[in-house]
């Protein structure tokens, strides 16, 4: 089988798929919200860790006294 025979069908396949629009809003939502999501996640982790460390310090301080 000669794969080159499929090349015109591949070009046609791309042309057909170029008719499906990728809206600007979808592009923006793909490149923007995940960053915000990552920021929220980092903030949440920071708050959790800060709380855990304060408890630990409080407990250790109690032991020392």
């Amino acid at each position, binding site marked *: *089988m000669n*794969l080159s025979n*499929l*090349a015109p*069908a*591949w070009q*046609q*396949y*791309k*042309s*057909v*798929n*170029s*008719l*499906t*629009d*990728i809206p*600007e809003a*979808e*592009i*923006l*939502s*793909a*490149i923007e919200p*995940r960053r915000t999501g990552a920021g929220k996640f980092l903030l949440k982790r920071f708050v959790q860790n800060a709380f855990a460390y304060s408890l630990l310090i409080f407990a250790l301080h109690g032991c020392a006294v």
Partner: protein
Amino acid sequence: MATEADLKSAFISMIQANQGLVNSLCKLYSRSDEEMKDYRQDVLLALWQAFPNFRKESKISTWMYRVGLNTLISNHRKKSSRIVTEPYSEAAELHPSSEAGSDDGLLVLQRAIGMLNPMDKAVVILHLEGYAHKEIADLLGLSETNVSTRLNRIKKQLEKSIKSLEHESI
């Protein structure tokens, strides 16, 4: 110096000018319309993250194939390490709504390529796009010999699939 807004605007224009390429790749790697949309988001994000480093030394389509295909292949690896996926032949059957148009030739092409494993899909897509074996090897991080071996195997596999798909449609 380009601002973030300029970059975004250039990026959106580039994606919309090449939406046939992005849609085709995502369709060939997905099993449903929902999955296709998820993959498209992943590819768009990967392209956006790589966009500031695009040096214009290669054609924009070559760069898009490199980033897009490698993203889709690595997505599939991550996914298949988490869950057991169904065989590709069955997967292709599960994606009827996204089949391109009503042209039988295109349906056969989509379903036959859909049955290949992710790396073989990438190799055959780049071959159909007219890239030489060495360029395909560079784009996918394979050796030239590996590309030639894969293409020989793919030819046999596609021949078999196309015959059986054409027989089915009669």
